[in-house]
C-alpha cells in the first residue's frame, strides 16, 4: 500500500485529546491513594485508607441504592421505550414517524438541568400532578412525590428514554421485514411474529440499550441531587459532597473510580450477549 500522506495532521489532535483525558483520569487514580488533610486542599503521602473507608455501612447503602435505582430505571425505560421505538420505525406515514421521533428525541437535547427542573414542577407538592388531582377531587392532601426514590426514578426514566429509543429504533430498522412476512406466511399471528421473530432479532439492541441506560443512570447527578433533595443519595451525590463540599479529594477520587469501575463492568458484562461491533454501535 502507498504510504498515506498527512498522517500527523490527523493523528496529533486526536492524540492530544486522548492524552488530556488519560491525564485527567490519571489524576483521579493518583489522588485516590493520597492522605486527606482535613481543612486543606493539599494531600499528604500515599495510603490505602480511602479504599478501606468504602466498606462503611453508610457508603455501602448508597452504593446499593445507586444500583437499585439504576436497575429499576433501565428496566422501566426498556418497557416504555420499545413501543415508541416500534411505532417510530413502523408507522405508515412519514409525518407520524417524524413527529414521534421529534417528540421522543428532543428531550435529550434540552439538558439535564432543564429536564430536572421540569420534573420539580410536575412532581412538587404544589406541582402539576398534585394540583390536577386535587382539583379533580381525587386527593385531599398533596402526594409526596418529590424527595422520594419513586420521583427520582420517574424523572430518570424520562431522561433515559430518548437514548433507549434511538438504540431500539436502530435495531428495529435493521430487522428484515421479509423475515416477519415469512413467519406470518407460515401461519404465525402478529403476537407470535413479534415473539419469535422481531423480538429475538432486536435482542442485541434490547440488551445493549438496557446496559447502556444502567451505566448512564449510575452516573446521573442532577436528578437525585434536586429531585432526591438529599433524601435520595447516589454515588454521584456522594462524590459531590466529598469533593466540592468537604474538599476530601482523595475519597471523592475513590468514589469516582468506583463509579467508573461499575459503569465499565456493566458494559463489559454485555460481551457474552452482544458482539463488540454491536456494542460499539450501541454506545456511539
Amino acid at each position, binding site marked *: 500500500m502507498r504510504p498515506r500522506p498527512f498522517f500527523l495532521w*490527523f493523528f496529533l489532535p486526536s492524540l492530544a485529546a486522548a492524552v488530556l483525558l488519560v491525564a485527567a*483520569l490519571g489524576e483521579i487514580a493518583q489522588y485516590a491513594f493520597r492522605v486527606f488533610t482535613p481543612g486543606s486542599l493539599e494531600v499528604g503521602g500515599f495510603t490505602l485508607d480511602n479504599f478501606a473507608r468504602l466498606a462503611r455501612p453508610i457508603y455501602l447503602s448508597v452504593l446499593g441504592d445507586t444500583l437499585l435505582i439504576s436497575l429499576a430505571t433501565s428496566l422501566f425505560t426498556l418497557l416504555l421505550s420499545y413501543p415508541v421505538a416500534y411505532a417510530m*420505525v413502523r408507522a405508515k406515514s412519514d409525518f407520524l414517524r417524524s413527529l414521534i421521533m421529534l417528540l421522543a428525541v428532543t428531550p435529550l*437535547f434540552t439538558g439535564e438541568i432543564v429536564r430536572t427542573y421540569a420534573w*420539580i*414542577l410536575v412532581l*412538587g407538592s404544589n406541582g402539576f400532578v398534585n394540583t390536577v388531582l386535587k382539583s379533580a377531587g381525587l386527593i385531599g392532601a398533596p402526594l409526596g412525590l418529590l424527595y422520594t426514590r419513586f420521583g427520582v426514578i420517574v424523572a430518570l426514566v424520562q431522561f433515559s428514554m430518548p437514548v433507549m429509543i434511538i438504540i431500539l429504533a436502530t435495531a428495529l430498522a435493521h430487522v428484515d421485514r421479509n423475515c416477519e412476512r415469512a413467519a406470518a406466511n407460515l401461519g404465525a399471528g402478529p403476537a407470535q411474529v413479534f415473539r419469535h421473530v422481531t423480538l429475538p432479532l432486536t435482542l442485541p439492541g434490547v440488551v445493549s440499550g438496557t446496559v447502556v441506560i444502567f451505566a448512564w443512570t449510575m*452516573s446521573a447527578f442532577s436528578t437525585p441531587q434536586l429531585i432526591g433533595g438529599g433524601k435520595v443519595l447516589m454515588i454521584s451525590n456522594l462524590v459531590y459532597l466529598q469533593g466540592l463540599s468537604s474538599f476530601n479529594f482523595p475519597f471523592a477520587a475513590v468514589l469516582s473510580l468506583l463509579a467508573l469501575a461499575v459503569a465499565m463492568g456493566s458494559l463489559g458484562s454485555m460481551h457474552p450477549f452482544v458482539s463488540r461491533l454491536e456494542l460499539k454501535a450501541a454506545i456511539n
Partner: protein
Amino acid sequence: MSARLARGLRASLFWGAVALILVYMTIPAFVVLMTSVSPSELLEFPPSGFSFRWYERAFSYPDFQNAFVNGLIVTAFASSLSLLIGSAFAYLVDRYVFAGRAALEAVLASPLIIPHFTTGFGFLLLGADLGLGQSYAVVIATHVVLTLPFVSRTVYVSLRNLDPALERAATNLGASPFEVLKRVTLPLLRPGMVGGWLLAAILSLTEFTASLYVTAQRTQTLPVAMYTYVREYTDPTIAAISALLIIFTTALMLLANRCLGLRRILAIDVH
C-alpha cells in the same frame, strides 16, 4: 369478522399506549412552558393569567447574563475544536492503519461510558495541578473531550457512506491527495460535519455535571448558574429560561430534521 375486530382493537391499544408514553415524555416540557408565562409565584394549574415577568427577571439577572455569555464562549470554542479534532479522528480511523489505533479509539470513545462527574472531577484535579484552576481552558478542554465521541461518530458514518470511487475519480483526473481532500472529500462530508458540530454545540451548551466541577463563579456556564439559582429560589425565573431552551432546541431539531435528516444524524436509518 372477529379477527378484524381483534386486529383493530390491538392496533388502538398499541397506539393508545404509545400516545400515553409520549405524553409522559413531553408533559414536563409543557408544564415548564405554562409555568413560565404564569403571573403568580406559586405554581398553579391552570395558570390564572399571562405574563412575561419571569422572562424579564431572567434577562435582567446578572448571574444569568454572565453565565449565558460564558456558555456561548465555551460552546463556540469547544464545539469548533471538537469538530476539528473529531473529524480528523474519524478520517484517521477510516483511512489509516497504525500501531495503537484500537487503544486511541477506546480512549476517545470512553467519555460515553465514564460518568460525567468522574470526567469533571478529573479535569478539576488536572487543572489545579497544572495551575490553570477553573479557567476557560479547562472548561473548554472538558467539553471537547465530552463531545468528541459524538462528532467523530457522525463524521465517521458520513465517511463510510462516501463512495471511494469518487476520490479515485478525482485522483485519476489529476488531483493530488491534498486537492482530493479539499475538493471532494471535505465538501461531501459537510452534512455529516455540520450535524456533528450541531450535536457538539447542543451538548456543550447544556452540559451540567462535569461543568459543575470545572467552572468557577467567573467561568460558570448557564446550566450551572441555573442549578445555583434553583437551590436558592423557588420562583419560576428558571421556568422562563428553561422554556427558551426548550423552544430553541425544538426549533433546532425541526431544522436539523428538515435540512440534514435527524435519522441520518442519529444513524438510525439503514443504508
